[in-house]
């Protein structure tokens, strides 16, 4: 293959750069009256339909408002129990831990938004449009709701003011080139700042439920408690500061290492925050130094040496045999009494050893792989140790946290863990190796044939009975394991759909350049399969999030359980279930809707190369 250069660039179909391209004609924009005529009243039938639908919608809206603003509604049951909704009975004196966790999540969010360039330019006209719509809705609300005359006027004025602001914004900006735009992030921050500022100004009232006092309900006029408004103000400042710090990092540092670090931090955040920060384990230093540390060091040194040998390109496939041997030894350890951590570490090492030939390479690649092992082992050991240590946070009845916190916690853990498991099951089910295929198919079919509640009850009641003596698994952890297994079976079927959409040509192209099956799967098949599966996968995540409410059946105090049972059971708020159910459904909706929007963004983003 000597010097072969080629002059066919001229024949390529690259369009000439300086050909003037005619601008597409501006979309025909009808004035409002014409638009209404063309779209809503174009025919007699259409007109009837429009009038009828409007009447029905107004009636529904009015009924809804009548429910919300009915004087018999006990909305103070919601306001008083907000803390219960968020964290249940997490002790007040340790509440700083909760705020620390929120702050960590917000810092990660802010930095990530900057690094991944979240947000886009939005024409101020569009902002005005939205404000106009909101104002109109407020005005409509004022007219329809069963308010007193003065309240109606107040709401009407507020609505008209918002609408007027929107109209001004809508009309002011220039057209075409000098169209004024504003970042969606700015809009978001202004809205949030408005909300936080209102905590300091608007007399929402100071409501608290204090269990060990009579009367237990505290309701004072004025703004909300300092312990509410101060932390939220700080949180807003933190997220804004994190965003600007992230922008600095984005501009000063290379992109890929930052993104990789952030991804790792996002994955580490949930277990570390829940088990180390919120749970506050009471470490026994003697045990840690005497038992846990030596086990960690042995695996760290031995594992790193083994893996750096396995990742030599020369070792080749012999490495897989050794990996399988480790796996077998790992399974055999379950036959003899032994510390759980020894077994778990052994299985992790086997997984790393199995993957080693795929990541074989030069000294740099080998070092990276060994460091990866040390990192994973370190985090896992730390977590196992802290989970096995009793917590200092003592809360009567079950898990130390509840409400929205446990709903989010169970959802996040389930989603995070069922992804790798589900993908593995899908790959096994489509594998050419019959053992994997049959095991995976059997698992999926069995789990999918059993109701979720059965699995949750099984894991909360039965599994602790089967555990060897001396081993404890708290109920919530056991239930999360069951939920992960359930969710991964469904997820596997979604991923399998994606795997089948990868064409045979893609497999052949990867084979033809000599990739191993593992390389082909990781670099070619999975990325394409997962992109196709985004919509069903996000649908699945939303389902997992909402179905955490089934945890209530096994006595976990989740968001729905608190709204449905706990608050209506308080003597002060007897029978206030409907208000609180409406409140929690709004919370569920907010999260589910954000997930859905995130999925749309993700689809747009990953559709980049598709055209």
């Amino acid at each position: 293959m000597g010097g072969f250069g080629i002059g066919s660039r001229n024949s390529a179909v690259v369009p000439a750069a300086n050909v003037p391209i005619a601008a597409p004609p501006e979309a025909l924009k009808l004035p409002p009256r014409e638009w209404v005529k063309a779209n809503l009243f174009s025919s007699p039938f259409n007109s009837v339909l429009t009038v009828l639908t409007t009447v029905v919608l107004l009636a529904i809206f009015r009924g809804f408002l009548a429910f919300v603003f009915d004087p018999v509604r006990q909305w103070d049951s919601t306001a008083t129990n907000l803390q219960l909704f968020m964290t249940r009975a997490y002790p007040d004196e340790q509440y700083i831990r909760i705020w620390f966790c929120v702050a960590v999540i917000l810092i990660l969010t802010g930095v990530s938004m900057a690094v991944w360039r979240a947000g886009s330019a939005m024409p101020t006209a569009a902002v005005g449009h939205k404000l106009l719509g909101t104002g109109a809705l407020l005005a409509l609300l004022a007219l329809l709701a069963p308010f007193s005359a003065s309240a109606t006027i107040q709401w009407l004025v507020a609505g008209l003011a918002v609408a007027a602001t929107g109209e001004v914004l809508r009309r002011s900006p220039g057209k075409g080139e000098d169209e004024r735009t504003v970042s969606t992030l700015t809009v978001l921050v202004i809205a949030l700042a408005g909300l936080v500022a209102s905590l300091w100004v608007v007399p929402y009232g100071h409501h608290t439920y204090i269990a060990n006092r009579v009367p237990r309900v505290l309701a004072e006029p004025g703004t909300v408690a300092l312990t509410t408004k101060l932390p939220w103000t700080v949180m807003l400042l933190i997220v804004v500061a994190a965003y600007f710090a992230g922008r600095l990092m984005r501009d000063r540092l290379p992109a890929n290492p930052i993104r990789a670090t952030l991804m790792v931090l996002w994955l580490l955040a949930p277990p570390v925050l829940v088990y180390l920060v919120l749970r506050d384990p009471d470490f026994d230093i003697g045990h840690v130094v005497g038992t846990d540390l030596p086990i960690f060091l042995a695996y760290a040194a031995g594992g790193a040496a083994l893996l750096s040998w396995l990742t030599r390109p020369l070792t080749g496939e012999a490495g897989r045999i050794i990996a399988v041997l480790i796996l077998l030894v790992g399974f055999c350890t379950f036959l003899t009494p032994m510390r759980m951590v020894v077994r778990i570490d052994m299985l992790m090492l086997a997984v790393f050893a199995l993957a080693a030939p795929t990541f074989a390479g030069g000294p740099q690649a080998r070092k990276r792989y060994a460091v990866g092992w040390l990192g994973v082992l370190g985090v896992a050991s730390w977590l196992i140790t802290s989970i096995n240590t009793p917590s200092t946070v003592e809360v009567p009845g079950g898990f130390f946290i509840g409400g929205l916190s446990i709903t989010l916690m169970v959802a996040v853990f389930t989603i995070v863990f069922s992804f790798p498991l589900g993908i593995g099951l899908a790959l096994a089910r489509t594998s050419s190796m019959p053992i994997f295929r049959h095991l995976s198919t059997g698992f999926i079919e069995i789990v999918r044939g059993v109701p979720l509640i059965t699995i949750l009850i099984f894991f909360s009641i039965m599994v602790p009975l089967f555990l060897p003596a001396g081993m404890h698994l708290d109920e919530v952890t056991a239930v999360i394991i069951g939920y992960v297994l359930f969710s991964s079976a469904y997820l596997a079927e979604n991923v399998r759909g994606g795997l089948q959409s990868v064409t045979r040509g893609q497999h052949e192209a990867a084979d033809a350049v000599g990739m191993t099956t593992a390389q082909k799967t990781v670099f070619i098949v999975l990325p394409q399969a997962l992109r196709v599966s985004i919509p069903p996968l996000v649908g699945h995540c939303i389902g997992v999030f909402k179905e955490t409410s089934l945890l209530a059946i096994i006595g976990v105090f989740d968001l729905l359980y608190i709204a449905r049972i706990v608050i209506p059971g308080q003597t002060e708020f007897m029978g206030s279930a409907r208000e609180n159910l409406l409140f929690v459904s709004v919370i569920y909706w907010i999260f589910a809707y954000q997930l859905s929007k995130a999925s749309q963004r993700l689809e747009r983003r990953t559709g980049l190369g598709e055209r």
Partner: protein
Amino acid sequence: MTDATPAEPTAGQIRDLSKGRDMIVCEDVSKWYGDFQALDKVSATIKEQEVVVVLGPSGSGKSTWIRCINRLEIHQEGRIVVDDVELTNDLRNIEKVRSEVGMVFQQFNLFPHLNILDNVSLAPIWVRKKPRAEAESQAMALLERVGIPEQAQKYPGQLSGGQQQRVAIARALAMEPRIMLFDEPTSALDPEMIKEVLDVIKTLALSGMTMMVVTHEMGFAKEVADRLIFMEGGQIVEENTTELFFSNPTEDRTKLFLSQIL
């Protein structure tokens, strides 16, 4: 070889390859799809630096044969030896052969989720274990050779068919193969893009690469091939040097084929 030198000597006519090493040896290769016999005792030897064009009507088994050579299809009888490695079920042999044999497909089969540069450099990095920087500069050099360095950061979907096929050729060359297989490389292209791809293949042939090309482009075959193989019904009907194949075909079936196509 022949002395009947036309005005422009072509690659095949000025080279004597008879002393070269055997790169691909097929002995009585047979393959069935269910009851249908796709290949029937195909035997041929391809020497180092030789360019062989395989012709034949649709369904004659030419694609099946060329795909057997890097084991995208599995032959059921006979032997295939590529660069002294026999293709058996042994995975190591298959991976070794595949990394020595580059393949270009009719449908390009670029990886749609990777940009052009990654398409070309992925296999050298992970299969050849090259450092990323080296693999990327090599990929850029190859894109330069096939004439589209400016597209390196685009995605396959943003390129024309001809450009995609040239990227596919660069991707195969990035593995520094000793043999290149082309499976109807221009059949899915618009007429005006065929030339740009054929030009690349021609320069590659002139550079001394061992090549096997399945194509319907007669002009290209005449110009580039050292030898032509005509197949029908899973069998090799005729095998001859380019000159003799076109000027003096021996088999009736070949004559019929040529009369229909030329």
